[in-house]
């Protein structure tokens, strides 16, 4: 029983550390939002969001221990997303 308890506790350690990091990043992004940094408010908040998304994908969605097939499937969505954004930006950001 005691052994089983220790074993289930072990399951919390890795994900727990990622969770603490995610909450610290949340506190950081909310705090930085109140500093007058101009355009950098948006840039920093998006970078922090990207770091949080990466942490969730790599550790919670277990891409760190997934096979190449699964990683490709995950990246496929990102690939099309990049096409979607870059082609649209190529139009809107270059209009006079």
């Amino acid at each position, binding site marked *: 029983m005691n052994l089983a308890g220790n074993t289930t506790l072990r399951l919390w350690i890795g994900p727990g550390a990622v*969770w603490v990091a995610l909450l610290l990043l*949340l506190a950081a992004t909310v705090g930085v939002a109140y500093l007058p940094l101009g355009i950098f408010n948006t840039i920093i*908040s998006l970078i922090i969001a990207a770091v949080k998304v990466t942490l969730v994908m790599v550790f919670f*969605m277990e891409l760190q221990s997934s096979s190449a097939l*699964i990683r490709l*499937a995950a990246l496929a*969505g990102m690939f099309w*997303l990049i096409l979607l954004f870059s082609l649209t930006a190529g139009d809107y950001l270059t209009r006079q």
Partner: protein
Amino acid sequence: MSEQSAALHEPWPSLERQREAVSFGVWTFLASEVLFFGALFLSYAVYRNLYPQAFTIAARQTDIFYGALNTAILLTSSLTMVVASRSAKESFRRMTLWCLAATTMLGLAFLVCKGFEYRDDILKGLIPGPNFPLHPAETQIFWTFYWVATGIHAVHLIIGIGIVSTAAVRLYRGRLPINASAFAGIALYWHLVDIIWIILLPLLYLIGRAS
């Protein structure tokens, strides 16, 4: 052996291969979800680029307290979901049940907070249409995005809560074996719903706070 065969379905030769197929299938579905939400985020980017002033004025009206609290709730639900999925893989039935229940409760807590927030938004009259309280008129574009994005996210979360609680009940009643590969698939979907919210936070709540 019987545990193994209860979780294993045709045509997979082993649980390992079946788990791989579940992950691949769910990731493929998530890729379509990413593009669905991606189009939404793209329209936000285009309009914010066209009307930056209006978006700043409009975003100041969102409630950052609820936004941050709900982010913390969803991040915590992702933690309990990970542990549920991993303890299922190692056949810890009790821990899996507790974590699935915690995930469900945290999902419901998110919806309750969102409900209070929606109530405040409605009382402030922040519904695009005639007599919209903010100016210029383009602030309504931001608030249309707010309602559509958070609404669709809430629908996804409600579906997630339905799936997680159903899996918990089926596991409790012995209809679903503890080593079923379904838990890993459910977890992937839940984390995507979390990711969408992580991206919505800076778009809806964090702009226009400093000035």
